[in-house]
C-alpha cells in the first residue's frame, strides 16, 4: 500500500514554566507557520476548582503549540511546547510517549517554575537537557550555581541559549539528541 519509501516522525518536547520562552523556541526553529491545535480535555482532567461549577462530561480544549523541522528525506521532527501547568500532565503523557526527549527551559529568576517539568522527566527516565534561556542577569550565574539550584544529576547537560535565535535553539536540540544517544549506549 505504500507509495513511498521509509518515512519516520520524531518528536521533542519543549517544557518549562509559564512565559519562559517555549513558544519562542518552537517558532524560532519551525519551518511551518505557527499553528495551534486543540486537544480535548474532559472534566476529569481539570482540577476540582474548575469543575465545581460545571456539569459532568464538559469538554474544553487547550491549545497546543507545535513546530516542524524536516531533518532529511525520511525524518521529520516535531517540536511540542508543553503546557506548563500540572493539570495538563495527562497531555504530557501522550506527547512524551515515544519522544526523543525534552528541552526544559529555565528562567534563572524563577527557577522553581521548572521543577515540575524536571520531576516529570526524571520520574519517567526521559532524557532532557536544561536550556538556560537568556534573560537579564542569566550570564552572572555559573553552571555550578545552576546545577545546585536545580539539583539535577551530573549527566544532565546544561546549555545557555537564546530561544529567539534559531542557531541557539538548534544547539540545545543537538545537545539533547547527543544526551539521548549516550543513554541508549549505556542501556544497550
Amino acid at each position, binding site marked *: *500500500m*505504500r*507509495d*513511498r519509501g*521509509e*518515512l*519516520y*516522525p*520524531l*518528536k521533542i518536547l519543549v517544557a518549562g514554566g509559564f512565559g519562559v520562552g517555549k513558544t519562542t523556541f518552537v517558532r524560532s526553529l519551525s519551518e*511551518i507557520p505557527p*499553528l*495551534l*491545535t*486543540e*486537544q*480535548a480535555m474532559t472534566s476529569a482532567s481539570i482540577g476540582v476548582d474548575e469543575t465545581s461549577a460545571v456539569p459532568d462530561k464538559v469538554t474544553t*480544549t487547550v491549545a*497546543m503549540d*507545535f513546530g*516542524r*523541522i524536516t*531533518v*532529511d528525506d525520511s*525524518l*521529520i*521532527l*516535531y517540536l*511540542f511546547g508543553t503546557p506548563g501547568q500540572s493539570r495538563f500532565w495527562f497531555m504530557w503523557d*501522550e*506527547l512524551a*510517549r*515515544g*519522544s*526523543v526527549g525534552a528541552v526544559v527551559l529555565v528562567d534563572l529568576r524563577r527557577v522553581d517554575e521548572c521543577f515540575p517539568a524536571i520531576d516529570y522527566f526524571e520520574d519517567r527516565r526521559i532524557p532532557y537537557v536544561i536550556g538556560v534561556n537568556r534573560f537579564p542577569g542569566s550570564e552572572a550565574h555559573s553552571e555550578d550555581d545552576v546545577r545546585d539550584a536545580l539539583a539535577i544529576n551530573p549527566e544532565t547537560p546544561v546549555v545557555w541559549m537564546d530561544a529567539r535565535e534559531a*542557531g541557539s535553539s*538548534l*544547539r540545545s*536540540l*543537538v545537545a539533547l*539528541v*547527543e544526551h*539521548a*544517544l549516550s543513554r*541508549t*549506549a549505556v*542501556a*544497550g
Partner: protein
Amino acid sequence: MPSDGEVPTPRRAAGRVVPVYAVTGGRTRSAGKELPVEALITVTHSGRHAADLQLEYRTILGLAAAPVSLVEVGAHLQVPVGVARVLVGDLADAGYVAVHLPQVGGDGTPGPEILERLLEGLRARSG
C-alpha cells in the same frame, strides 16, 4: 462550539457546513490503533483518485500530497486532534492514505540508529 469570548479566534475552516461531530458520526475514536500525534500520512495512489468524498476527507488527502502529521491535519482543519485521528483512521481504513508510525524499540523510545540520523541532520543544519 466555541464560546463567543474565546480569543484568539483561529481562521474559520473554509466551507464547513456541518459540525465536525456530524462528519465523524459522533465517534471520537477510530476503530484502529490509536495513532500518535506525530504519525505521518501520505496519500496513496487510490487516494489520489478517490471520488465523492466529504470536504474534510478531500482536504486531508490534499494535505497528504506531501508528508503531514496528525497534529498538522488537526490544526489545518481546526478540529481537535481526536477528531483528526478519526478522520485519518477512516482514510487509512479505506486505503486512501498510508500511515507512517514512529520507529521505536522495545522500550518505546527511538533507537540509536534513528537518533544518529537525527543528530547528523541537526548538526548539518547548525553549520
